[in-house]
């Protein structure tokens, strides 16, 4: 049988993102897949040379709309590590709450798109209806539906009142009930299983060797999640990753579905345990003679921390005599980052890594972003050969591709 090369994307009815795949097919069976990226490159990393490190918070939020809060969180944690800032505990809990709400809405979005990819449009609408409640929570508590813009270096910009916490809990109860009604359909329905079970199998060894992250990795039996490193308030909340063992599209779908419900529990727990106090610390910066320092990314990171508290003084709460405008929760930042940091957070799609380097000026020397989809493309290319052409959309969507993230 002669081989045919079929272009798939960047504009395709089932693809929400501009990914181009050159599929070599042999009688409807995919033999080889070659990706082409670069359709939405915006050069956001380069902007760090002309925008100061505080302005970069708003810029990295725009790397990805779906997980904007987590990009900002990862960046802010990196800057805080370089400058040796201890974020108030309440701010850590608030970051956790908004981060997990982002995960819920991203997973619901994906579950809807996934249902749409195998032609189950009514299920797509059901998931997106539930997602709308989460978006309302975002708008009411952060001031925007998508790019929430709550993280700043030193803490968060907004606070949650007891009434808002109560309202969020009520909304979560309704949403959880609605999602559980869809559980039987997405996980047990005959047609869904027919399209997902055994499709695009990534074995446990392959997942490790090819460097898969997120639900792709956990769907193949690895209990690895960046939340285990204890960033934000995860160190105090106790967290166990969700694992499935089959490694197929169905397993990845099940991981995401179960993670949605798990995130509800984390939000509730964080609200219940959230301490009172300040939401942003004042940041006082480095001396001019400060030597470059290497600071570990999260707990148990790859680099060791040293010479950390020598040149920085931290004020945990703004003293009352400081000139802070009424109603403003923003942190006062003085000084400039000088040193390197690697931070990792768990995005809905997997592990997100930031490498930050400051040289004591207001502009960062380097902001390097490694997004989860970038890590998940090699495993995708490994699981596509051997599948039928009709299964390609389902398999591609099962990695939850975010090309805007990948190209930045």
């Amino acid at each position, binding site marked *: 049988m002669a081989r045919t090369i079929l272009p798939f994307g960047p504009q395709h009815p089932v693809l929400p993102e501009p990914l181009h795949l050159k599929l070599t097919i042999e009688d409807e069976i995919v033999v080889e897949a070659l990706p082409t990226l670069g359709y939405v490159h915006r050069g956001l990393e380069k902007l760090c040379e002309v925008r100061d490190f505080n*302005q*970069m918070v*708003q810029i990295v939020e725009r790397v990805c709309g779906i997980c904007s809060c987590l990009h900002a969180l990862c960046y802010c944690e990196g800057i805080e590590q370089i400058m040796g800032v201890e974020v108030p505990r309440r701010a850590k809990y608030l970051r956790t709450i908004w981060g997990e709400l982002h995960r819920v809405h991203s997973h619901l979005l994906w579950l809807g798109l996934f249902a749409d990819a195998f032609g189950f449009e*009514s299920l797509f609408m059901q998931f997106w*209806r539930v997602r709308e409640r989460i978006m309302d929570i975002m708008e009411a508590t952060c001031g925007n539906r998508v790019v929430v813009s709550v993280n700043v270096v030193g803490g968060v910009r907004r606070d949650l009142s007891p009434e808002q916490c109560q309202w969020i809990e009520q909304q979560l109860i309704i949403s959880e009930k609605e999602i559980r*009604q869809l559980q039987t359909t997405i996980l047990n329905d005959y047609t869904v299983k027919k399209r997902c079970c055994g499709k695009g199998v990534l074995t446990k060894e392959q997942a490790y060797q090819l460097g898969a992250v997120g639900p792709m990795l956990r769907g193949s039996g690895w209990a690895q999640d960046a939340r285990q490193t204890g960033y934000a308030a995860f160190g105090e909340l106790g967290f166990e990753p969700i694992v499935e063992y089959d490694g197929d599209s169905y397993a990845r779908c099940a991981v995401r579905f179960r993670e949605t419900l798990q995130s509800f529990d984390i939000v509730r727990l964080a609200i219940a345990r959230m301490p009172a106090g300040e939401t942003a610390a004042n940041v006082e910066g480095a001396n001019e003679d400060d030597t470059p320092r290497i600071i570990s990314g999260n707990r148990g990171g790859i680099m060791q921390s040293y010479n950390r508290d020598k040149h920085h003084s931290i004020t945990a709460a703004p003293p009352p005599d400081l000139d802070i405008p*009424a109603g403003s929760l*923003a942190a006062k930042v003085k000084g400039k980052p000088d040193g390197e940091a690697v931070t990792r957070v768990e995005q809905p799609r997997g592990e997100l890594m930031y490498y930050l380097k400051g040289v004591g000026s207001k502009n960062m020397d380097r902001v390097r972003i490694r997004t989860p989809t970038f890590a998940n493309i090699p495993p995708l290319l490994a699981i596509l050969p051997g599948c039928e052409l009709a299964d390609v959309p389902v398999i591609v969507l099962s990695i939850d591709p975010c090309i805007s993230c990948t190209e930045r």
Partner: protein
Amino acid sequence: MFNMTKNVVANLFAKSSTRLYPFAVRGHFEGFRGTLHINIDECIFCRTCQIKCPSQCIAVDNKAGTWTCEAMSCVYCGVCVDVCPTSCLSMSKEHRQVATEKQTMAYQGVPKKKKKEAAE
């Protein structure tokens, strides 16, 4: 299959999930970052908003006493509102109106005199 059928029947008799836009318009929540406003009388033309703005859409001339904002470059992050020392910037919860041409918000105020000039 039966579960979904039950859901479909329930939806038939439930209240509509969508609104009859534009007759029924959903309002925004309190604190929504919709449109940027300035009370130019209180502005001291300190240029803090211009310096801190991530999209660099604000231009302040402290000699001429003008404050301008490229409304279409603004990303509505609210940083300028947070950093304004006189709290003259604020955000209302209504969206900016749709426009067919590029808009610039331009305000003319009275520049603050220096202490020496004021004393004279």
